C-alpha cells in the first residue's frame, strides 16, 4: 500500500497507538472479525478503526518494512482480518500509571462511601490493579482527590441495601422522615435508582402509597428492609426524569415563590442558578416552594440578605418565624 495518512501531531499518533494496541490483540487469532466488534473493543467508530489500521500499514516506500514486513491486512466492507508473522502485540499493553490513577481515584471514592464491611473488597481491588501496571514505578497518586459527600455508616448501609434492591428489582420498605414530620412513615417503594445532586444522595422510586414517582433524600431514610416481592422495571424510566436543571424534583409540585437576594450574596446565588445579576447587583430567583416550611428555612438561612417578594403568605410565615426566634 502506498497511500499515506499524515498524522504529524504526537497527540493524534498517541491516540492511534492506544487504539491499535487494543485492536491488534483482538485480531490476534488471524481470523476475520466484524469491524463493529473491533470498534466496540477500542471505543471508536468503525471508520476510525479502518483508518488506524490503514495508517499502520501504509508505508511511504513500496517495500514493506519494519513491523509491517509480512503483515497482511484484509479490510472488507464490514470485516477486518490482520495477520502478522512476528507475533507482536497479541496482548494489550499493561495499565499505565494514568489509567491506574483514574481507577484508583474511583475506588477511593467508593471506599469513602461504602460501609466498613465492604471496604476490604475495594482495597483488594486497588492492590490487584497495581499488579496490572507495567511500570516498575510505584503507583503513587496523580494529585487528584474526589469525594461526593460525607455520610454516616448507617447512611452508607442504607444506600447499599437500596442499591441491592435496585439491582434485584426488589421492593424496599423504607422508614422515612419527611422534612416537616416529627414521626417516621413506613412505606413500600419500588426503588429505581439513586441520584447524587447538589451535595446529597436521593432515591428515585415508585411509591406504592402515592401511586407515583417520588424522590427521597437518602439522609432522611432511617431504615430500609429488602422485601421478597419483586417488581417489573419501567422500561421507559430514566434517572434523568427526576432532574431539572441539575436539581432533583421532589414530590408534588409546590407553589411558586420569588426571592430577591441582596448584592452582598447575589453573585454566589447567580453563579449557582446560572442567572444574571440585576443592575443593582442583586438577583431575583423564581423557584418552587415545595412546602412552606422548606421555603421559610431556605429564606432564613440567608438572614437579611434574602427577601421573599411573593407570595404574601410566605412573607408572613417568615415574619412569624422570626418573631418566635427573637424571643427564643
Amino acid at each position, binding site marked *: 500500500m502506498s497511500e499515506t495518512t499524515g498524522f504529524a501531531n504526537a497527540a493524534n499518533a498517541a491516540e492511534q497507538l492506544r487504539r491499535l494496541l487494543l485492536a491488534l490483540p483482538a485480531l490476534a487469532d488471524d481470523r476475520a472479525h466484524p469491524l463493529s466488534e473491533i470498534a466496540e473493543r477500542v471505543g471508536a467508530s468503525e471508520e476510525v478503526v479502518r483508518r488506524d489500521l490503514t495508517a499502520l500499514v501504509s508505508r511511504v516506500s513500496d517495500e514493506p518494512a519494519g513491523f509491517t514486513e509480512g503483515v497482511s491486512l484484509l479490510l472488507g466492507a464490514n470485516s477486518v482480518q490482520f495477520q502478522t508473522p512476528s507475533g507482536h502485540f497479541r*496482548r494489550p499493553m499493561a495499565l499505565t500509571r494514568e489509567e491506574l490513577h*483514574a481507577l484508583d481515584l474511583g475506588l477511593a471514592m*467508593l471506599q469513602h462511601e461504602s460501609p466498613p464491611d465492604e471496604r476490604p473488597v475495594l482495597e483488594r481491588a486497588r492492590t490487584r*490493579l497495581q499488579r496490572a501496571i*507495567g511500570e516498575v514505578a510505584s503507583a503513587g497518586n496523580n494529585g487528584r482527590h474526589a469525594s461526593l459527600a460525607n455520610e454516616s455508616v448507617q447512611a452508607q448501609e442504607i444506600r447499599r441495601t437500596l442499591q441491592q434492591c435496585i439491582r434485584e428489582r426488589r421492593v424496599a420498605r423504607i422508614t422515612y422522615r419527611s422534612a416537616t414530620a416529627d414521626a417516621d412513615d413506613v412505606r413500600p417503594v419500588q426503588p429505581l435508582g439513586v441520584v447524587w445532586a447538589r451535595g446529597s444522595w436521593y432515591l428515585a422510586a415508585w411509591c406504592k402509597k402515592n401511586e407515583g414517582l417520588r424522590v427521597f433524600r437518602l439522609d432522611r431514610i432511617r431504615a430500609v428492609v429488602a422485601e421478597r416481592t419483586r417488581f417489573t422495571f419501567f422500561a421507559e424510566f430514566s434517572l434523568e426524569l427526576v432532574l431539572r436543571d441539575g436539581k432533583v424534583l421532589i414530590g408534588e409540585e409546590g407553589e411558586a415563590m420569588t426571592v430577591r437576594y441582596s448584592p452582598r450574596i447575589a453573585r454566589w446565588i447567580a*453563579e449557582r442558578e446560572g442567572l444574571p445579576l440585576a443592575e443593582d447587583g442583586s438577583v431575583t430567583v423564581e423557584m418552587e416552594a415545595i412546602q412552606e416550611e422548606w421555603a421559610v428555612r431556605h429564606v432564613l438561612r440567608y438572614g437579611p440578605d434574602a427577601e421573599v417578594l411573593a407570595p404574601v403568605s410566605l412573607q408572613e410565615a417568615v415574619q412569624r418565624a422570626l418573631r418566635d426566634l*427573637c424571643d427564643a
Partner: protein
Amino acid sequence: MPAQPKLQRWIDLLAALLRRKFPADFDTLRQEVPAYAEPGRKHDTLMRMFERDKDELRALGVPIETLVDGDGSMSQYRLASKQFYLPFLQLAYDTPRPVQRPRGPGYQGLPVLAFEPEELDAIARAAYRVAALGDPALAHEAMSALRKLGHDLPVPREAPTNELISLEQKPDPELLDRLGDALQRRKRVTFTYHSMHRDAEGARTVEPFGLAFLTGHWYLIARDAGAETLRHFRVSRIRDITVNEAKAQSADFTIPAEFDLAEHARSRQAWELGDAEQVEVTVRFRVQNGFTMPAMQLGDAVPEDAALRRFRVRRPDTFALWVLGFAGDVLIEHPPAMVEQVRTLARETLAWVEA
C-alpha cells in the same frame, strides 16, 4: 521522500525492542526501524528523532529502560515484555483455568492475575464513577483501563443506569487538562481568577498541589508563588490560563512529601474555616425531622443528652445563620454570646423584612 509517520516509527520501535530479550543500542535497533535508517539523513538527526520517540512513548506509559555500559560511553535500550504487556487476567475460580498464551515473543513469561468477581465489579463501578466527574482526561484514562481489562474479563460495557451523578456545572475540559498537565510537571500557572468574596478579577500565579472534586465542583489546591499558605480555587472561576513553559523539562517547585491531598481537601463546614479563635458551641435539636436529621450527624455528641451536639466554630456569624435556617427547630444553648448573636440576627432580619 516524505518523513515516515510517527505512528509507524513508534510501532516499529516497539516491535524491535519487544523482539529482544537483551538490551540493544541505537545502531542495532535502527536496522529494524526504517525511519531511523533513512538514506541521506545525518546520524545525529536520526538519533534525535529516536530520542524524541522514546520520550514520547515513555510519556504514554511504555516502560523503555535505558542502560549505560560500564564507562558510560554507550546507551542500550530494553523493553521487557513482562512490563509492556498486560498480565493474563481471569476471574478467580476454585480451580484455576489454563491460559491460552498466543504464539510470539514475550508471552510465555507473562503472569496470570485472578480477580474476584466482586473486585472486578468494584473496578467497573470505579471507572464509571470517575467518568461521571466531568474531567474528560480522567474519563478517558478510566475507560481505556476498562477496555484493557475487558480483553480478558467480562467488564460491563456501559455505565450503570441505576446511578446518576448530576453536576451543576460541567468543567471546561481544556482548562482541566492544562491544570492536570501543570500539576504533573510541577509547573507554575498564571490565570485570571474571579474572587467571589471581593467580587473582583485578578491575575494569580500559583503552584498547583492538587485537583479535588468536592461537593460537585472541581477545585485547584495551590500555593501562591513564594507563599506558604495553600488556597482553594474553584476551577469554574478560572480563565485565561498559561502554564510556565520556561525550562519545560524541569519542575518549578516541589510538593513536600508530607503533603496529604485527601486530608487537605477534607470537606469542612463553612463555620470551621478561617484562622479565628475556635469557640465551642452547644446546640439543642428540639425536634427530629427531615430538616434536622442530617444536621444531627454534624458536630460531636454530648454523652448525657442525645438532643445536644457540640460544634467547634471559628466563624460565629456563619454559624448563627445556619442555626437561624432551622426556624427554631435548633437552638443554641451555650455560650450566651452565641445565643444572643442568633437573637440579634433574627431581630435585624425581622426589622429588614418588616420595613
